[in-house]
């Protein structure tokens, strides 16, 4: 073979190899029924209603003491509601160590800091601080027991929150005559006990960080030791107790389904699961429909999220949750419309018998939101239901 021939045939081989490696483009528009063996996928719809008496409320999953905030408000979440926060700071000693000697001091100024979040739909929201007796029994707090102390005579100070800012750090600085409101008498044993109220132009509420929050309440004192040429000594005290009391404590109606609240309530619902959905169908949409039995409780712009999670196994109220099955909805405020949550990612787990056809409803963050929903049940004639759109198994073997 001559060199020219060899080159030519190598070129031919390269051409052949390039043909072999050609990319594929097989997609073309189709025309039914001529080019649709088996036809096109036909969608179907099925409505599943909760099994009778298999929908229940269970309360006590997350205790109030696990929360990181205090729910404080006036006329919110309902007009009849008012809640006050109570904060007890760690005791402040009656002397400070200055130049290696414990010395008495005079208070120059104090600053009280709180982390807050509020409803931006309300204007001129004020966080108010009131002095409470240091002898307050925090183990027996009641709304009626502390309400008399929220009077002008006990007023420590307040700060208006910015209307547009959903989160703020309140810092109230007290100097001069204002220090009298936080003066600690010997009978106080160094304890500053303080009440927190949130008010606005209209009924409103806010969330105030408690002693478990990222920025817990802080009582900062600037002290001047009683000595010649004193310098300022700062002492920071954290809260040793922070909780709140409410005028109303909702009562759970066992005939209805209650989700949210403090302590947290969850709803367990079991559904029938028809054979035609069990494995070969493909679920494209599933919507849980809940009919509110009363307007959804909450605070505007502070709504909680309604979570719907499937169960990993059905052991009743203590069932473990399938972590990757979740449908969620920001719970609308004050609505009586049917609540609809997309839960296709929940019910898909029910196919093939992998998970039981049951779900838990909860509102997150639990015990840290004003949102609370009360929905109809199978006992009240407005049962939860799931509207499912699915594609049945395609007839692949149709030629």
């Amino acid at each position, binding site marked *: 073979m001559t060199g020219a021939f060899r080159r030519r*045939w190598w070129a031919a081989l390269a051409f*052949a*190899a390039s043909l072999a490696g050609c990319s*594929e483009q097989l997609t073309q*528009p189709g025309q039914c029924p001529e080019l*649709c063996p*088996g036809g096109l996928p036909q969608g179907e719809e099925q409505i599943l209603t909760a099994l009778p008496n298999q929908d229940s409320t269970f309360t006590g999953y997350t205790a109030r003491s696990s929360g990181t905030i205090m729910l404080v408000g006036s006329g919110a979440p309902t007009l009849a509601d008012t809640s006050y926060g109570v904060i007890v700071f760690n005791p402040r000693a009656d002397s400070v160590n200055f130049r290696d000697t414990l010395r008495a001091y005079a208070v120059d100024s104090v600053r009280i800091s709180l982390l807050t979040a509020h409803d931006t739909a309300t204007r001129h929201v004020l966080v108010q601080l009131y002095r409470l007796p240091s002898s307050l029994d925090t183990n027996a707090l009641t709304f009626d027991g502390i309400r008399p102390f929220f009077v002008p005579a006990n007023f420590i100070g307040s700060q208006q929150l910015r209307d547009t800012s959903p989160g703020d750090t309140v810092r109230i600085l007290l100097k001069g005559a204002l220090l009298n409101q936080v003066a600690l008498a010997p009978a106080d044993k160094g304890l500053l006990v303080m009440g927190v109220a949130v008010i606005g132009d209209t009924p409103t509420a806010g969330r105030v960080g408690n002693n478990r929050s990222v920025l817990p309440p802080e009582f900062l004192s600037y002290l001047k030791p009683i000595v010649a040429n004193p310098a300022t000594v700062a002492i920071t005290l954290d809260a040793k107790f922070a909780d709140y009391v409410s005028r109303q404590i909702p009562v759970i109606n066992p005939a209805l389904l209650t989700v949210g609240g403090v302590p947290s309530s969850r709803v367990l619902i079991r559904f029938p699961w028809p054979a035609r959905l069990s494995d070969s169908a493909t679920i494209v*949409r599933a919507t849980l429909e809940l009919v509110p039995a009363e307007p959804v409780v909450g605070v505007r712009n502070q709504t909680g999220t309604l979570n719907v999670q499937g169960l990993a196994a059905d052991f009743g109220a203590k069932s473990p949750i399938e972590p990757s099955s979740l449908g969620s909805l920001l719970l609308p405020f004050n609505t009586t419309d049917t609540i609809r949550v997309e839960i296709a990612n929940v019910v898909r787990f029910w196919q093939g018998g992998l998970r039981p056809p049951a779900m838990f409803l909860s509102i997150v963050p639990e015990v840290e939101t004003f949102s609370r929903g009360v929905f109809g049940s199978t006992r009240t004639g407005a049962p939860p239901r799931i509207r499912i*759109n699915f594609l049945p198994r395609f007839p692949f073997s149709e030629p």
Partner: protein
Amino acid sequence: MRRLLLLLLIAGTPAAGAAQSSQFGVRGLGLPGRAQSVRAMGSGGAFSMFDGQSSVSPASLVYLPSMTATFTVMSDYRSATNPAGTTSLRDTHFPQFAIGGPIPHTSFTVGFSYSNYTTRDYSLVFPATIILRDAPVQVHDTIESRGGINDLGLATAYRLSSNWAVGVAGHIITGSNRLDISRVFSDSNYLPARQRAELSFSGFGVSIGILGQLGRTLTVTAMARSDGHVSIQEDSLAIRGEVDLPITVGGALRWRPTANLQVAGQILASNWSTGNENIVTAGGVGANNTVQVAGGLELTPNPRRPGRTPLRLGFHWGKLPFPLTRGAEVDEYGVSAGSGYTFAADRAGIDLAVERVWRKQDEQYNEKAWLVSVGVSVRP
């Protein structure tokens, strides 16, 4: 170096096992393959019953002078038109593999071949608006299919005399077809849906052939093949469907007026309509009988080295078995040209064929395709 290049070429061949894609392979069992080597394709398939590297007639194995392995790569550049529009398409396949040769000191030749029986390679999209929950929702459906039915043939030919030979072959009909439908919605509340299935095919067929030389210049051959039926199973379901496969009969004539020139004509007829009832019962459109006619010539510059740069020309015409609408007929016709080159003392060769193919059903459905095929043959 040549061996290395050949190995690279073989290794680079895609693993697809189909001959060519077509919208006329969407219905029924798909688009039938032609079981031809590139050498036969270059002349329209007219010489396929005289070509030991093709799998049409088992008697043709006697033309293998020694153990020969043949690989075929086909690229398909296609323009397909239907009422939904016209689209340019392309794909590459591996439609034919054959190995065979004479058994020394006997009159027998044996061969094994892998051929495409039918192809179901397509991908169709269907945009639509449907009503869901009393509201219009735009959807986009895609139906995809890959695979088809393959024919594994084990054949033997026996030389009765210097002028006559017969052959017989058994065919295992096997293969799988991966199907996939998907639907996406314009409304994000609806999740994309996808369903898949795999159809498995199994069957058995036999073929016979006879070949005779009449005088110095004329050769005739005839073949018959019966494939019984193919069983179809979807995934691992217990339900198994069946479709009757055709009996095919054919004949061909080759005339060699000079040492440099040979011309041939071939006709094949298949009663695909035997599966019509099965297909219609299963919800399909149906099946028609087919006839395939081919004519071609091969001009050899050097009769002593027939594999070196021959010129092959040919045409073919035929019917396709699976129409898109009931009662319709699908025509296919094409013209082709090809050549080849052998080297290493004729122990290796490359063949090239280019075909222009037209397929048509009514006025609404047609296709035009360039089929470029490369065959590599090795005689170890």
